[in-house]
């Protein structure tokens, strides 16, 4: 097999893995024609978060933060073990974020001498490439002390979050807007054409309903900046920032595979540098840096003299003009220590503020089945899969609502969507178990098992129509899904301003029954700020954040005579 064929295989591999990743995100939804085997207890048909489970960085960091390797994360060894032998093949052949950066870097590049000269310069190894290792050490140290921040920059989490909460919803809005505009022109042929085009788009890309995510501007903007930077420096993200790339670089320490350079045949045309993705020094005269190489094989493929060759057990002879390749990562001990200490210091710094568990936001309603806040923060990688799969668009990325530690973790906003009482999809897709998977019984409860609660509803009597304005309503009670209903009412006759007698039903909440699903808040006809609202108190996941005094059934209660 010629090297050109192998390079084409690499290109194919990048496309295939990108499509798989993208397809899995598209499938992270409740499809309209989806027919599960058991309609009563709906299970998604595919393991849609499997791509995230192959991520060695997610595996290592959650291992550090929780002490265990959760469920499917063992799959990450499929990536990690070959890396030990080959190097960062994942970055060049598999990683969808890497491929995206690759394509954005290379597409419609300016050809010519000036551009080549620029690339020869920018594709040489630079000290800025060390940054990713320091980011990695910082985050791993923080993870070890219980704060999992890796998801902010882990490429697979980042890509899943960006596509799921920013890119696809934006496409949806644009497609609907365009369709409406064309239909508004009043030309039937155009309208039919636009509808067909929209239908095809919807079939391929769009979920059943348009999702609107809270505060996606920063997520979308961050993603856009990453893509734009590629135009300045090829694969800047992969070279300088990506902590997964850094981790795989570290695991390339004892590879058996590598680049062999033949100094004798080289004519110093620099074609290898122009084509290089990782800025790892493929040219004769530079140190070839194994931990930086993505194994894209471009250098070997473009070399007109066949001076470069990737092979097992490469000969790396040192000459004056051609220093040997190295498998060592270029980091300074001092900076490694600094970043580790920084990561350790980060945890108390983030937690000494008042946001974490001390004075948490009352509207920080976590998805059903979420672990206690400290365990949650030790697991959540901010991949946004729960937000994407939620059929009611109820889950949204936070900004600072959960403190600086919880950026982009999920929060339920009942005004936009409530928690559907029998739905357990968010727990099904969570790759790290931050949201535990609930059975239907554990979600809704029965005589012996209490339901999973995410909060408690309260009534704002100053805004409630029957309480404040002598107007009948009781929609909250109508929507309440528990049985018996947690919203109950007293029928009262009140006098309105014109001295008419009006019969109204005034709602109240039974906190023993309320699960905090937010259906009442969602449905409340007071459209701007609902007259009934949910706060997190009473949530099953917290021992501290409780409203009611718990009573136990003791056969002989102390202090009471039989």
């Amino acid at each position, binding site marked *: 097999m010629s090297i050109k064929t192998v390079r084409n295989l690499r290109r194919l591999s990048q496309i295939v893995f990108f499509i798989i990743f993208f397809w899995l995100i598209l499938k992270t939804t409740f499809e309209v024609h989806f027919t599960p085997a058991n*309609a009563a207890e709906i299970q998604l048909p595919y393991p849609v978060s499997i791509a995230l489970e192959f991520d060695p960085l997610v595996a290592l960091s959650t291992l550090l933060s929780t002490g265990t390797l959760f469920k499917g994360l063992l799959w990450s060894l499929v990536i990690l073990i070959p890396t030990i032998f080959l190097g960062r093949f994942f970055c060049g052949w598999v990683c969808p974020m890497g491929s995206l950066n690759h394509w954005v870097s290379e597409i419609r590049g300016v050809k010519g001498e000036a551009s080549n000269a620029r690339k020869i310069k920018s594709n040489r190894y630079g000290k800025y490439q060390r940054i990713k290792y320091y980011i990695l050490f910082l985050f791993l140290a923080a993870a070890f002390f219980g704060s999992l921040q890796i998801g902010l920059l882990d490429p697979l989490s980042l890509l899943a979050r960006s596509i799921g909460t920013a890119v696809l919803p934006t496409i949806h809005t644009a497609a609907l807007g365009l369709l409406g505009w064309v239909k508004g022109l009043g030309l039937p042929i155009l309208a039919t054409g636009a509808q067909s085009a929209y239908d095809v788009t919807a079939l391929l890309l769009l979920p059943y309903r348009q999702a609107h995510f809270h505060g996606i501007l920063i997520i979308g903007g961050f993603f856009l900046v990453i893509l734009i930077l590629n135009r300045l420096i090829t694969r800047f993200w992969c070279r300088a920032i990506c902590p997964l790339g850094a981790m795989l670089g570290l695991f390339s320490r004892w590879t058996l595979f590598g680049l062999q350079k033949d100094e004798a045949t080289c004519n110093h045309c620099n074609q290898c540098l122009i084509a290089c993705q990782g800025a790892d020094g493929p040219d004769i005269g530079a140190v070839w840096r194994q931990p930086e190489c993505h194994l894209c094989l471009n250098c070997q493929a473009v070399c007109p003299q066949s001076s470069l060759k990737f092979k097992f057990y490469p000969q790396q002879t040192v000459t004056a003009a051609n220093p040997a390749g190295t498998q060592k990562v270029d980091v300074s001990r001092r900076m490694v220590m600094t970043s580790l200490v920084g990561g350790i210091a980060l945890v108390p710094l983030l937690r000494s503020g008042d946001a974490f568990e001390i004075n948490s936001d009352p509207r920080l309603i976590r998805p059903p089945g979420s672990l206690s806040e400290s365990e949650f923060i030790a697991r959540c990688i901010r991949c946004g899969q729960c937000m994407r799969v939620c*059929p009611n668009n109820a889950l949204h990325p936070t900004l600072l609502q959960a403190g600086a530690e919880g950026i982009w973790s999920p929060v339920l906003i009942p005004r936009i969507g409530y928690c*559907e009482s029998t739905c357990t999809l968010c727990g099904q897709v969570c790759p790290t178990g931050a949201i535990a998977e609930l059975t239907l019984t554990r979600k809704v409860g029965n005589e012996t098992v209490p339901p999973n609660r995410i909060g408690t509803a309260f009534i704002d009597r100053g805004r409630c129509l029957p309480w404040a304005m002598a107007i009948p309503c009781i929609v909250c009670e109508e929507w309440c899904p528990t049985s018996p209903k947690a919203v109950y009412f007293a029928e009262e006759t009140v006098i309105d301003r014109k001295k008419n007698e009006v019969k109204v039903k005034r709602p109240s909440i039974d906190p023993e029954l309320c699960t905090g699903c937010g259906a009442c808040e969602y449905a409340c006809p007071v459209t701007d700020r609902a007259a009934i609202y949910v706060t997190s108190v009473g949530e099953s996941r917290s021992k501290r954040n409780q409203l009611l005094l718990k009573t136990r059934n003791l056969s002989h209660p102390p202090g009471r005579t039989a």
Partner: protein
Amino acid sequence: MDRRDFIKTTGKTLAFAAATTAAGVLFHNRRVAGVEPIVLKTSDFTVPTEKSLPQIALAKNTDHIAALHASLDVVGGIKHFIRKGDRVTIKPNIGWDRTPEQGADTNPVLVGEMARLCLAAGAALVIVTDIPCNEPRRCFLRSGIRAEAEKAGAKVILPLEEDYIRTVMGGQMLDVWPVLKYFVQTDKLINMPIAKHHSLSSFTGSMKNFYGILGGRRSQLHQKIDQSIVELATFSKPTLTVVDCTRVMLRGGPTGGSLDDVAIENSVICATDMVAADSRASEFLSLTGEQVGHIALADRSGLGKLDYRSVGYKEIT
């Protein structure tokens, strides 16, 4: 600068300034917002009545399909309502994410059989749809209606934002409202509610079922629930009404959830008079038509007969 250049340069500047001014004047509008286009629709899908036919029948049978057939035959049989080539929309109650046993949504077996009957009578297309309160995908799936209707050959459509049309409904409260197009752009409309308890209107059956054709923030209609139900029923005149009384939720409506609140009645009502149908069905909840605000109001406004015996009520057990 010579004269020619001066005229040319100044002329260009003046023309640009004039064009800008003209554009401003042209688009100037003192009104705050434009008027949205309104689509006017009639929604009367009734077929001419035959005097000899009873307008309401109730059949009781543990075989629910047999009960449907029996009561339908009394009011004229399917051929009386459906012509060859008709497009038919069936409007069950698929309001909540509940299973059939919980009695919050119309019995899926009845919906499937109704679709089958329409197709057998020559209907070109049978659409089954509703605008649920809970998440539509879950409601259509867990109510069992999607599966049964598709099995029968009907087209099951979930409501989409772009499928609503602004509709003049001509009521006091219901003036202009978004309505899902399948309920107004069709040849025949079959209303298939389930009879159950409702906390505000005390009973929900066929007339209240038309809340489900509305988009928008329909929960605001609760402020004048009886009036709005009657206005809706005045606007939307179905070809046929089939009230599912096979499982009747007695308490905790309209969502329910507990099987203890559901009474097994194994009854199906077919009617061409919605008021009579609701009046009869409300008796399963130990109510009478007079006690249910919207039924009494509908009777007073001449929409139908609260006294269902006066329109030829027949009972088959």
